[in-house]
């Protein structure tokens, strides 16, 4: 046992080094004075440029924020209702919905992007923020659906029956019983949707149009032809931002779950 575990330990440590090393290089270079290549001295100039002299970047960030929040909100409402329907009720197309929500998780992103681009263009939609929004709702929806469903599966249908026996109608049962107790699942579905939306490059790349540059698309155009020091600084800010955000959301979720 001992030799085996020391082998797996070595692989694990090597893997962690492998996973973190590129991020450390980014942090290091973000403080480098020169534009690229060798280390010439400590400097904050790229951070200053990032925050005071990168209007396009911040416009892209604004677009990303709007798309992420908007698409997450719509996906959460539609996905939650769908999950509630599938979990507790019988209706036509129930198994269809279950299959369809599974597909986006197994199909490569590029297929979703290409098929939506052809769909939008074929129907004469103008590519732009709206098509990006629609695409993001579409790939977010299944994740919200599955996360909420996972939460719902912990409960018994007798809760619904109890509510009905006590005189609640369908709307009251939904709003006063089902939604509150599913809240942790709904919130984590929403947050997941926001994250996926902020993260997406491939699908957005295909369905975007003029004036609808999101942050990942901006990063792409900046790094396409090599190293860009402002992106080094942006990377560090984004890494720290994600860690801080995820940390607070974890605690927020725990707080909701405990309530």
């Amino acid at each position, binding site marked *: 046992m001992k030799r085996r*575990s020391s082998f*797996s330990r070595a692989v694990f440590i090597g*893997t*962690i080094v492998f*996973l973190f090393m*590129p991020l450390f*290089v*980014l942090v290091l270079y973000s403080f480098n004075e020169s534009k*690229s*290549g*060798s*280390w010439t001295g400590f400097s904050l100039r790229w951070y200053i440029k990032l925050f005071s002299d990168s209007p396009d970047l911040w416009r892209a960030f604004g677009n990303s924020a709007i798309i992420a929040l908007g698409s997450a909100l719509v996906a959460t*409402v*539609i996905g939650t*209702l*769908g999950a509630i*329907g599938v979990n507790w*009720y*019988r209706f*036509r*197309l129930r198994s269809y*919905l279950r299959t*369809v929500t599974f597909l986006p998780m*197994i*199909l*490569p992103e*590029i*297929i979703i992007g*290409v*098929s939506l*681009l*052809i*769909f939008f*263009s074929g129907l004469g939609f103008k590519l732009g923020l709206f098509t990006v929004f629609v695409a993001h709702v*579409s790939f977010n*929806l299944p994740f919200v659906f*599955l996360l909420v469903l*996972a939460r719902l599966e912990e409960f018994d*249908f007798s809760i619904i029956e109890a509510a009905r026996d006590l005189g609640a109608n*369908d709307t009251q049962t939904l709003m006063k019983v089902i939604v509150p107790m599913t809240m942790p699942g709904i919130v*984590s579905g929403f*947050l997941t949707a926001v*994250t996926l939306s902020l993260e997406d490059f491939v699908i957005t*790349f295909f369905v975007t149009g003029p004036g609808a540059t999101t942050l990942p698309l901006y*990063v*792409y155009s900046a*790094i396409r032809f*090599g*190293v860009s020091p402002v*992106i*080094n600084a942006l*990377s560090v800010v*984004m*890494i720290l931002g*994600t*860690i801080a955000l*995820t940390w607070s*959301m*974890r605690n927020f979720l725990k707080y909701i*779950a405990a309530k």
Partner: protein
Amino acid sequence: MKRGPGGLYATPAIVWLTVFFIAPLFIIVLYSFLRPGLRGGVEWSLTFDAYRAIANPTFAKVTLNTIVVALGATLVTLLIALPCGYYMARSKNQTLLLLLVIIPFWTNFLIRIYAWIAILGNEGFLNDMLQALGLTNDSIRFLYNRWAVALVLVYTYLPYAILPLFSTIDKFDFSLLEAARDLGASKFGAIRRVLMPNIKGGVLTAFLFTFIPIFGAYAVPLLVGGTESYMLGNLIADELTKSRNWPLASAISLVITLVTTIGVMLLVRANGANVLGGGKEASEAKAEQSAPLLNASLVALPHSGGGAS
């Protein structure tokens, strides 16, 4: 399960996914049999030209390259991920180790690719180090070849493999391994004949989670690959935006979709039969499959709490 307002609740989801997910897939099936229009779009006449074009040597070369890179990168990923998952499952500090694997994964996908450009580029970190150490005078071209693509793909999708493997190995009853040893099995023999068959589901999930996105990779070969490391994803994008041959782009997309779907079905079926001894119903096998799949995505996603917290 009761009749009730379920259909009403599910209607928006059914409509949205049908219109914006299923219909577009059907449209690419249709388009793949039509003639390309002059500036994008299609002409409404039936033809098999797109499929004929796929069969020509240039495309076959890209397809072959895609398969080789995808299988190679997936295999390497699994070989690294297995001992990692094993070590994490046996550790007492599971939450910490999980965080160590997930934190780099939180970093934006493009930033992770970019980090490798910063390391491997002509004026990157590695060349800088080599020159500082006096090992080379001219910068070495590490980027823009098949090896760079494979390396960055492994880097990008490693957590996708580690997480499902960890959650499966974690559920394994290790006293079985001790029992096998007591009964005279060698260390390696016990792992191969007792542990491996039991974690087959996790290995399969890890394989699919890695192979599928790598097979459809677009951004990684675009940014760190060269012309010889072109993959099917890049070909689709070129046909769409440069050559404006929509039927061909649709046909290639369809090939990727079919390979993915058939792969998933075959593996789930083979695995279900093995794990459950073929005695149980297919639906149960499917549930067995989707559980770790869903579980892995839950653990993998930043704030869902994960299994160990």
